[in-house]
């Protein structure tokens, strides 16, 4: 049985249809039930829905053999896993954004509000810039509006939220998309099944091109 952790929400549902199209479906996964675990004996898969930022934890600790996580989560938590396939869906960008009239004064410590402390720290370290990280768990856009931070480091999909709050993208740190990740031990012990899923999804990704 192959255990698969999917991120709750729109992305997870979209990715699930890719699993289904590659022959690893499981009835009622997309239903309205409150169940957390769905099993299909015939295809040998067991799906479960978890909080998107937790997928990497389930996979790293082997509770899930494979899972789907955004590149943002992988780079933020740096789990010890294999990142076996770019699913080319859930695309967005990790960006530095600030108020439209913001002018960077390199003479003072830059105050950065973000949910992605490690990504922000690494990015500014690569530029040799001293920063003050303000870790927030949501509504990041509020920080520069209230003057608590100079910039934010956050995921930008369409930019609508930024625009509505008078912010704009100043820098793109990296592109983001959903990735298929695999536990290192499962990759060895369930290799046949894992490779079958990777191959099936790879065909889906190519077909969507």
């Amino acid at each position: 049985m192959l255990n698969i952790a999917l991120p709750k929400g729109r992305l997870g549902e979209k990715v699930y249809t890719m699993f289904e199209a590659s022959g690893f479906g499981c009835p009622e996964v997309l239903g309205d039930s409150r169940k957390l675990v769905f099993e299909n004996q015939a295809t040998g898969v067991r799906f479960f829905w978890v909080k998107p930022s937790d997928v990497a934890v389930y996979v790293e600790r082997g509770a899930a053999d494979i899972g789907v996580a955004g590149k943002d989560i992988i780079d933020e938590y740096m789990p010890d896993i294999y990142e076996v396939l770019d699913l080319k869906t859930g695309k967005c960008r990790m960006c530095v954004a600030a108020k439209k009239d913001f002018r960077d004064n390199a003479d003072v410590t830059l105050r950065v509000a973000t949910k992605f402390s490690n990504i922000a720290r690494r990015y500014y370290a690569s530029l040799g810039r001293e920063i003050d990280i303000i870790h927030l768990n949501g509504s990041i856009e509020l920080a520069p509006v209230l003057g608590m931070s100079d910039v934010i480091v956050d995921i930008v999909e369409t930019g609508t939220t930024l625009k509505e709050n008078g912010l704009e993208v100043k820098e793109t740190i990296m592109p983001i998309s959903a990735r298929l990740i695999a536990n290192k031990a499962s990759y060895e012990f369930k290799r046949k099944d894992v490779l079958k899923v990777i191959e099936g999804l790879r065909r889906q990704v190519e077909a969507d091109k």
Partner: protein
Amino acid sequence: MAEKYNLKGEEKVLFKLRSLYSSFGYKTYKMSRFEEYDLYARNKDFLVSSNIITFTDTDGKLMALKPDVTLSIVRSVRDQNNSVSRICYGENVYRVSSSSGTFREIMQAGLECIGDVGLLELCEVASLAQMSLTSISKNSILTISHIGIVESLLNQIPDILAPIVAKALSARNVSALGALADNNPYYSEPLSKIAKLAMISGSTDEVLSQLSDMYVDEKSLSELRTIAKTLDPKRMRIDFSILDGMKYYNGIVFRGYVQGVPSAVISGGQYDKLMRRMKKRSRAIGFAVYLDSLERLLEDVPDYDVDTVLKYSDGDDINVVLNKAQEIRNSGKSVVTLKEPDMNLRYRELVDMGGKDNA
């Protein structure tokens, strides 16, 4: 024999490993728990984590609680020609746990083979790693790579790309490697070879023949081939994603997995580069077994806490109670004397000094 002493799972494994290693002539090496901090400060990249517990010794020297055993062994072994030191250990090391962020005491076993190390010693240590895994679990896999093969390809691409490529290879990130090859047409040959290394799979023979067709570093490939042939093919795989510690490892590197543990339980390889850094001429190979990660796997919860509860009351003659307990003990059972058994205590039988025996 280990069962008789009521040992914990990790202790049983340690016991088995010790006798395995000593059957190959490895001598146990008992070390002090402390080491001068300087040793680790100079070789920080070799350590899993750079956080170290330090304290000041009576003479003002900065000391550290050992985060690693290999460095101490390497330092203490003298260079020698035509001879090999075979050393094994079972020690506690002190490291920061990546999940909790606090220090933990971790039981580690392992061995080091240092000196005039040739192909035979490399084969021997690799198969000892495989045997160590087998002694832990019936279902195990040793994954093995050769740094020489990967490095010869990484040397063909610019320094600025190398770390990105290495990171992608270690994550088996074929998509990223493909994109790198597309975006750097000038280096597409080494980059597409590296992408192939990330995807390579199949039986050892298949992988080795695929590698021959790829024209990778010939000397390293022939070494890998010889070593791979001495291992049990059913319990091994060639895997080029093993890349951490490239500054220290130069030849074969390996990781060991057992079913039921989500991360590698064995890690090791040939580390001549570390020897040079520590101003030693010898060659060396070794590995560590992370016994702490086996805690859950080997956990066998006994059905009973104790065989017999001997129930007594204040009025009973102490000598009679003690003698009765010893009598039961002599018959090979464990006994605890209690006035009233604890509700959570699981026992096979209750013997009441009042004379009534209850099952």
